[in-house]
């Protein structure tokens, strides 16, 4: 048995400790906003916060997350997250809606979490800093121009 605390709720789960956190969240806790895209930390679709830091849940064994605080997209948009994360996350989501960033939407949970992590650390990033922070998150619809714009807009809204 291991204890996973996800979006403020504790779950007692009997899982293979090597199981990636992604599959514990998706298939055993039932939160499906976190996506499987590559399984090897190449695409960022599985990004979640673990103890306030963004991690690739597809490559993080569930045993590593046991006892820690996990926040997924579902929690972030409700304002959950350590420190300023929740507030920043909501501003990011608002900017995402205002600029109609999404297309297919599959990568967007990961994009929003990565953008939130960036703005929580650097409230006024340059385009180069945005590109550096976001280059681990693939979007095959290539919504990148709007992602940049939405991050700038969220940064302005948070001032």
């Amino acid at each position, binding site marked *: 048995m291991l204890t996973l605390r996800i979006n403020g709720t504790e779950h007692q789960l009997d899982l293979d400790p090597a*199981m990636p956190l992604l599959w514990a969240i998706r*298939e055993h806790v039932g939160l*499906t906003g976190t996506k499987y895209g590559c399984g090897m930390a190449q695409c960022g679709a599985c990004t979640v916060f673990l103890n306030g830091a963004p991690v690739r849940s597809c490559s993080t064994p569930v045993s590593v997350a046991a006892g820690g605080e996990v926040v997924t997209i*579902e929690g972030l948009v409700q304002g959950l997250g350590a420190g300023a994360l929740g507030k920043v996350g909501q501003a990011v989501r608002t900017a995402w809606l205002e600029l109609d960033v999404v297309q*297919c939407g599959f990568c967007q949970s990961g994009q929003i979490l990565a953008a939130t992590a960036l703005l929580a650390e650097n409230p006024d990033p340059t385009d180069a800093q945005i590109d550096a922070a976001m280059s*681990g998150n693939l979007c095959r619809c290539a919504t990148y*121009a709007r992602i*940049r714009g939405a991050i700038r807009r969220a940064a302005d809204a948070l001032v």
Partner: protein
Amino acid sequence: MTTTDRQIAAITPDTIENVGRRTFLEAGIAAGAGLLLGLRIGPAPATDTDHAGAAPAAAATFAPNAFVRIGTDDTVTVIVKHLEMGQGTFTGLPTLVAEELDAAWDQIRAEGAPADAARYNNLLWGSAQGTGGSTALANSYEQLRKAGAAARQMLVAAAAQRWQVPAADIQVKDGVVSHHAGHSARFGELAEAAARLTVPAQIRLKDPAQFKLIGKPGLHRTDGPSKTDGSALFTQDVRLPGLLTALVVHPPRFGARVKRIHDTEARAIPGVERIAGIPSGVAIIARDFWTARRAQDALRVDWDETDAMTEGTAEILARYRELAKSPGAIARRDGDVDAALAGAAQVIEAEYSVPYLAHAAMEPMNCVIEPTDQGIRVWNGEQFQTGDQAALAKVFELAPEQVEIRMLFAGGSFGRRANPASDYLIEAAHCYQALRARLPVKLQWTREDDMRAGWYRPLYLHRIRAGIDPKGRPVGWDQRIVGQSIIAGTAFEPMLITDQVDQTSVEGAANLPYTVPNFRLDLHSPRLPVPVQWWRSVGSSHTAFAGECMIDELATAAGQDPVAYRLRLLKNHPRHLGVLKLAAEKAGWGQPLPKGRGRGVAVHESFGTTVAQVAEVTVRKGGQFRVDRVVIAVDCGLAVNPDVIRAQMEGGMGFGLSAALLGEIRIEHGAVVQSNFHDYQVLRIDRMPEVEVHIVASAQPPTGVGEPATPVIAPAVANALFAVTGQRLRSLPLRLSP
């Protein structure tokens, strides 16, 4: 509550109450050719609800036709017959209904249609239901406007009855029906009364000058909220009681078959339900993904490689070069090209090539098969209902109507989910059958399957010889294309292969817009075991590259500016001229740039939409380069949703840029070399240029925007790199010599 309802409840708890509460009244029936009325509108079957993670459906009382449902809570639900895979159908199609209905945009919801070709066929595809060829908006333009207008007329008639006033004196604005004497009612208040009326035989559409929503900014995507809070439902997210996960081990080489399965260790893993050979490989069915994945690692398969492919990309290319020496099937012939080239002042000859490409949608292929009392239910990012339903009916020996299809959001597709062979759906069916239990099964491809188990944009080779006269004008153009047919062997063959020419292999080349008096295009379609399929923009994904680079080479040979040269040769193509001039002007074409920077241009029509792009590049020492800025001009007829069009231009260009800079599936000894995003690189944000989109004002009927931006960027960038370096790059992905 039926089993179905409970299963839906397991997925989206809020929708279930609504399903239970829902009462549909018998609405009238009427004619109206485009409306597909005369259909049964009885109690809403569960299949009419809850697709694509749509917002919880309202208590619906008024459903005048197959496309509109108005609830007593004022919600207007638009039934969308086309897959939402990012291109904006769940926004664009509802706009058409909302416009004619005079609804407020915030009362509009979008919901995916069930598989039912009688009601939801693609009007540009005859009797088939499916999404592709950038047709969703174009084929729905009149149909959905009529659907909205019919509903509006019925609401007005209901109000006229209630208030005892002439219908002509009633106004509708932002979802409110009113009369100058002070009467006013929201749609929801009139819905039940309207449902008792007959659908009008005469449907009046607005004059476009009266449009309040079509062509206007500020309509946010209907799928924005659910795709930013984790609630949007993709196939990957389907959860059902008893659901098992299937992974399939595919043969490493194309054409290999299972010889022997060593599964003792894999079967011993708790939670592994079944391991069995199926036609496409070895199915592993387990209680969850991770268990199946562990079993996959523990499994060993001996492959029978008797019929396996032995060639690789290098051999294929060499074979194509040989083939290109002999004439192929004629796709188009004007004048006498041999004589014209013999008499030309200058002849330029070039070979262009493009590699195999994976679609690499963010959501790896997947499909859920669930047993029902009537047959099966399929949960899928469904792009080709008619074909998939028939294919699955055959596998299960059912009638097509016993195969119920739930169209969910697709996490990208780029053509992949409309597979003419229904490949991954049939594989899911085989997994379900191998289980030999009445439990739902989710087939989940890994990213590695997605890269290696197929269906690719084919590798193509183009050889072009073109001649110019002393003034630089083209006098002859002789083009030969070599590459696999994506249509051969599919149900589309009778329609799309004529006189041995697969029209999708030559589209964008056979209709070269430039004035060239003598022209010949021929085609070789060799058969190979590599599974190939359409890929965003289909034939144009390679023909635009060859054609738009070659015309640039001719401009250079003629000593003329690439934009001016094209403009002179496009006199009979006003839409090409319009976008080319607009893009050039907005890009500052001709204005000096610092050393190391340059511009390139390309213009191309696909699916009735014309796009011009000007790419600005910076080249650094050592052959490194960056695309800094892309200016796009598009003519897609009437711009229904300007912001969706801009999004498709930005993203479609980015998708094409990914292939131009990075995309390559390489085959060695019959097996794909790439396996995941570390070795099949795709565009990341740090290489995304600044993009500007300009839409040509037009009153012509709207055409599609999902694909036409994709093929234009590769030639624009190649031409820009030439402008800076003098190097002509004739194969993709683009790599400069240091």
